[in-house]
């Protein structure tokens, strides 16, 4: 039963990792950009949520109403002002520019909030639990998982059922021809980054309610998100959810064996999958 519990808790944790990964996956899918600052943006969202709760007296979940639009606007501006200039055949500029962004965000947060770990106060939600099938499940982890499923379903729907998603796919296929259709790729990329950072905002808030955070943890979140994306297969959103779950389960089982093994177990499972299935478990055909 203890092991079943570890698997269930790991699965729920995977929901959070899928939220980390979804934005990364979206950005890569639309413009082949890998954002090294992604993890720091998640942490930034958590801090914005913290400020919203302390300054405005909002519940962390209500803070989503402020942080999600704020991050989305920031994403659009960031893309139009800086990142669009880096896109091209050469992978170095986007990589190094987002790396620079990562350092800037980290140190700005240090300056503004200090290095002390902080946490959002979500009141009763943090400890609330219910029992199902002999297991005690926290309301918050379950809620995070449900939100993750909802976010991925929403992204999937946006991608395949809306005009915006059509524009994303067309631009991803062939930027020049998409431009001929009257689509300004700079604007489309801005919208994609806005959407990705909106998802990042949700990820940051759920992270900040769940655990304490400090400005230095962004790199680790980027890595978890990245591992989920690669395990699931590039360009497959539902695969990303599965990737997150595999990573989460590997970590909780690792932690069960030895607390020092939690992160290591996750990385090792990732490396094993990379060795056995280099294209991930569910690669998109033709990618």
């Amino acid at each position, binding site marked *: 039963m203890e092991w079943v519990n570890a698997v269930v808790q790991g699965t729920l944790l995977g929901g959070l990792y899928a939220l980390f990964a979804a934005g990364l996956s979206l950005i890569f899918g639309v413009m082949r950009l890998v954002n090294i600052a992604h993890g720091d943006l998640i942490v930034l969202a958590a801090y914005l949520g913290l400020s919203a709760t302390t300054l405005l007296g909002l519940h962390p979940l209500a803070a989503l109403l402020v942080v999600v639009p704020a991050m989305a606007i920031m994403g659009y501006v960031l893309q139009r002002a800086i990142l669009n200039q880096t896109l091209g055949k050469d992978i170095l*500029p986007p990589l190094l520019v987002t790396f620079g962004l990562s350092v800037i965000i980290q140190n700005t947060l240090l300056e503004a909030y200090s290095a002390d770990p902080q946490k959002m106060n979500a009141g009763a939600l943090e400890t609330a639990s219910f029992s199902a099938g002999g297991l005690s499940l926290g309301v918050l982890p379950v809620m995070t998982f449900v939100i993750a499923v909802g976010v991925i379903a929403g992204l999937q729907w946006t991608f395949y059922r809306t005009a915006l998603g059509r524009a994303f796919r067309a631009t991803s296929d062939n930027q020049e021809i998409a431009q001929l259709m009257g689509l300004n790729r700079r604007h489309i990329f801005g919208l994609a980054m806005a959407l990705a950072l909106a998802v990042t905002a949700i990820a940051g808030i759920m992270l900040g309610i769940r655990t304490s955070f400090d400005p230095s943890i962004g790199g680790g979140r980027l890595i978890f998100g990245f591992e989920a994306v690669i395990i699931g297969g590039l360009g497959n959103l539902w695969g990303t959810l599965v990737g997150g779950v595999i990573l989460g389960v590997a970590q909780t089982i690792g932690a069960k064996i030895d607390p020092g093994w939690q992160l290591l177990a996750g990385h090792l499972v990732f490396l094993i999958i990379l060795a056995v299935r280099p294209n991930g478990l569910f690669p998109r055909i033709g990618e």
Partner: protein
Amino acid sequence: MTPSDFHVTRSSSVTKIAAVLGLLILIILIAAPYWAGRADMRLMGELFLYLALASLWNLMAGYAGLVSVGQQAYVGFGGYMLFALTMFGGVHPIGAIVIAGFFGALIAVPVALLIFRLRGAYFAIGTWVIAEVFRLSFAQVSVLGGGSGSSLPVGIVRSLSSSRAGREHLSYWLALASAVIVIAAVYFFLRSRNGLALTAIRDNELAAGSLGIDIWRTKFVVYIVTAALTSMIGALIFLQKLRISPDAAFSVNDWTAFVIFIVVIGGIGTIEGPIIGTLIFFALRETLADLGTIYLMVLGVVAIVIMLKAPKGIWGLIRTRFDVELFPLSYRVKHSQTAQKD
């Protein structure tokens, strides 16, 4: 004017002057213990180690297209190898540095086989995962102090030299030697057949492939050699620090972020770039270090602006402005009569 009036050459009078000047500067630097203070020597030692790391990162990213954000894996690995070999193997520290390089190359082989499956930017994050695996693994080794790390025993430190000044001079010379060896190695590598292949790959991977250059193998060799040298530098770094811990050994900020900034600011894809970048980096650090986090923010902004506005860095600006090269790498066509003049 007949074709025989023209000849193709790599060297120019600038490169010859640079070579003479370089040799002179090198002699002055070797003599530093006789003219420099203790603090200056310490700073210069650190500068040389960063110069060596930056030149290696530049070889990978600027020439082989292997953008790694995980070189701290080898810095930390080398450092831990030094501690393990001297503490438990009874090896002399200098010997341990060499063996650390060998082990670094050895462990880089399976690592490369794995992460070479990732393309472009995903390769970069993959290298970071490897560095994390190294960090978490060494944190599990309790004889090396686990998560809190350990110090190098006094006896081992004394084995370098009995006097403090002797140790300081030795570690200064080792740092200087590492920078010179790395730059020389990069230079001769780039002039070799493999180096030409690298340049071809950088300019056009598809065309290089069709010319029969084994792109995978060339990149693999660069990765392994870089890993070996980075491990040796890591061992040297922690021989100076005398203390190691997983967080310090595998710090992404110290061993990768700074190195990337140095290369980007100086000029990626040139040998001169890391040299200029290191000088600028240390000048900035010595003047702005009191500002703490703001200094890092400034560094990030400078790197982004350079990447966007002058992607070839400061050296790139100088080179396009004056058409000079300190290390003779490119071929130039010269007319015999005009060749005398320039």
